[in-house]
């Protein structure tokens, strides 16, 4: 397991924690953008190892958490209308306004949990008399595979396949967070895997415009503490620039082949974010040439618009304004078996991470 075990090294990690402690002189709030990073911080018990002055704010980078309620309702509606709906695993338990995909499955819906969207194209080929929809959720990371499935379907003349697109982009979300009047974030740990696809050119202008350090960071314990250390160094010396901690995976220009596939199938459009609302130019929509593979268009399900549960403060959680345990419903009326909102469902959701790994006892920072 090269490139993994090295980054779980006790001594090295301890060394960076020590350097952080020696460098920090005042309180800094650092947002880790990606839910995978939140998961890594909590799972490895890093939050408790950081000095009190380093406060980690959990960002919006959990694809499951930011998928709006109405899209889940649309997927449920498809499932209830004899469509085979295929989805990534952690999407299926997220509550819609009436039910989750898992509950719709229990009522007889044909729901398939897949690892690769290309498998959904195979299911469409095996079921020529049925419609098959892949619930294309995710940030830039999953966009290439989802785009590829559409290209594959077109190439093979598979007409009973389409995707329900809910793709969102990271930089517009970071801008929305920075523009929020309550924002008090001093630095970002950029989402490593998103940048593996997209590169980090977009982040350079963002860092300059908002005068904020951005460290593109990985997910292992050593990655995380090294990323935090790099952010602290910039903050303490009054600098703001983009640095790449995750250079073993991320190149400035990104993954050129993957970008080509994305640009072939998707174009940038407005997207609604769960808990945040609509952000202009913040997601992908299928281009005109691939409209036939757009499930919303194909099944005429544009009209569904539903309100969020008013008790869920997912928006404040996703913008880093509040921590999960600061929610009055946390662990009481909202828990993983009965979630009020998506951040309590996905393993990358900040609320679920707090609930599973800290029970709000060990971690209180």
């Amino acid at each position, binding site marked *: 397991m090269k490139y993994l075990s090295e980054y779980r090294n006790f001594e090295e*990690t301890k060394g960076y924690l020590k350097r952080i402690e020696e460098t920090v002189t005042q309180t800094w709030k650092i947002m880790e953008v990606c839910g995978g990073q939140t998961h890594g911080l909590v799972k490895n018990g890093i939050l408790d190892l950081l000095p009190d002055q380093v406060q980690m704010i959990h960002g919006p980078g959990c694809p499951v958490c930011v998928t709006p309620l109405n899209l889940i309702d649309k997927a449920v509606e498809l499932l209830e209308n004899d469509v085979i709906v295929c989805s990534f695993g952690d999407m299926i338990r997220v509550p819609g306004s009436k039910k989750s995909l898992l509950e719709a499955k229990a009522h007889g819906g044909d729901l398939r949990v*897949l690892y690769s969207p290309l498998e959904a194209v195979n299911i469409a080929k095996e079921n020529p008399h049925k419609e098959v929809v892949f619930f294309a959720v995710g940030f830039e990371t999953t966009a290439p595979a989802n785009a590829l499935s559409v290209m594959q379907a077109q190439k093979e003349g598979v007409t009973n396949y389409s995707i329900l697109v809910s793709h969102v982009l990271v930089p517009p979300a970071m801008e929305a967070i920075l523009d929020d009047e309550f924002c008090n974030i001093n630095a970002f740990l950029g989402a490593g895997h998103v940048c593996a696809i997209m590169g980090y050119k977009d982040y350079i202008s963002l860092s300059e415009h908002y005068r904020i350090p951005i460290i593109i960071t990985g997910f292992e314990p050593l990655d995380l503490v090294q990323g935090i250390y790099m952010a602290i160094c910039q903050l303490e010396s009054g600098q703001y620039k983009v640095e790449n901690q995750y250079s073993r995976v991320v190149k400035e220009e990104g993954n050129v082949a993957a970008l080509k596939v994305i640009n072939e199938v998707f174009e940038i459009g407005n997207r609604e974010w769960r808990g945040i609302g609509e952000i202009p130019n913040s997601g992908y929509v299928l281009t005109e040439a691939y409209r036939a593979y757009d499930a919303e268009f194909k099944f005429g399900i544009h009209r569904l618009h539903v309100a969020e549960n008013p008790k869920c403060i997912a928006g404040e959680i996703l913008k880093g304004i509040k921590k999960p345990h600061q929610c009055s419903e946390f662990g009481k009326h909202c828990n993983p078996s009965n979630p009020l909102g998506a951040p309590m469902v996905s393993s990358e959701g900040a609320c679920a991470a707090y609930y599973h790994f*800290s029970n709000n006892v060990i971690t209180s920072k």
Partner: protein
Amino acid sequence: MDIQKLGFDTINLGHGSGGLMTRDLLDNIIFQTFDNPILDKKHDGAMVNFEGQIAISTDSFVVSPVFFKGGNIGELAVHGTVNDVAMCGAIPKYISLAFIIEEGLSLSEFITIVKSIKKAADESGVHIITGDTKVVEKGKGDKIFINTTGFGPLHPKANISTMCIREGDSIVLSGSVATHGMAIMSERQGLEFESDIVSDTTNLNYLVRDLLDAFGDQIHFLRDPTRGGLSGVLTEIVQDTGIGISIFEDRIPIEKQVAAACEILGLDPLYVANEGVFIAIVDKAIEASVIQFMQKDVKGANAVCIGEMTTAATGKVILNSRIGGKRIVSPLIGEQLPRIC
């Protein structure tokens, strides 16, 4: 067994009717395979003699896919129940065997499963003494479901109970975690990935018997962490005892490719199902001897102490991470789902 002689190649509703077709299936396959004096009486139930306390355990097996690398539902149905009886500190002797078959199951698959059951039962030293066969309509099952109930006398030296667990006891794990769960996962439709992960399903009753022979009531508790994984068993123990558990991430054995598969799917190996492993909570004084003893047996070759019972965190399982952090291990909620990215 000559399939051609039987005159049918798939199981249909008639084989569960209780009529001649059922009798045909039982006589030619079941009774012939499991032949023993108790079963041969062909009564509605079995009659056996026992003195003293017995342990009894029942389990239903609904694994999908039915055939997987390293085994099939048949041996799983024997091992699962044999091991559950053994974990009570008992010597499994007899099991019942009930099939719920979905019509359309090929006879050759059924025979393969039955043969696996026979082999597993022989290796575990148990007899199949009563059973049942039902057939349901296509679409109302998933090829085949099996229920087994096993029982046997308590080991004379055993005193296995959460009541016996004490602060300071050592938690010994007999082998690598998550192997069975990932073997199954690697063959599930939609999640298939190429791997050589082979299920470690096996009977643990002899190793448990030998441990009890050697260490008696210094073995305080035994449990095989099947569904719900290691985390499931550990969190149950802290709930039942009120004592806490402290375990160390870097001590928990896991096969390299199992760890890699968990990484790929975003699954935590602590929550993945196991088959051929168990935990023994033992007096600290015998920890080293128990590990040494277990390591001499192929089924305990990777035995290791993963942690201890502690009052430092009452009623909680604390995992000490590789990098020196701590986190609470909470029970699994619903099914563990592969992550998006």
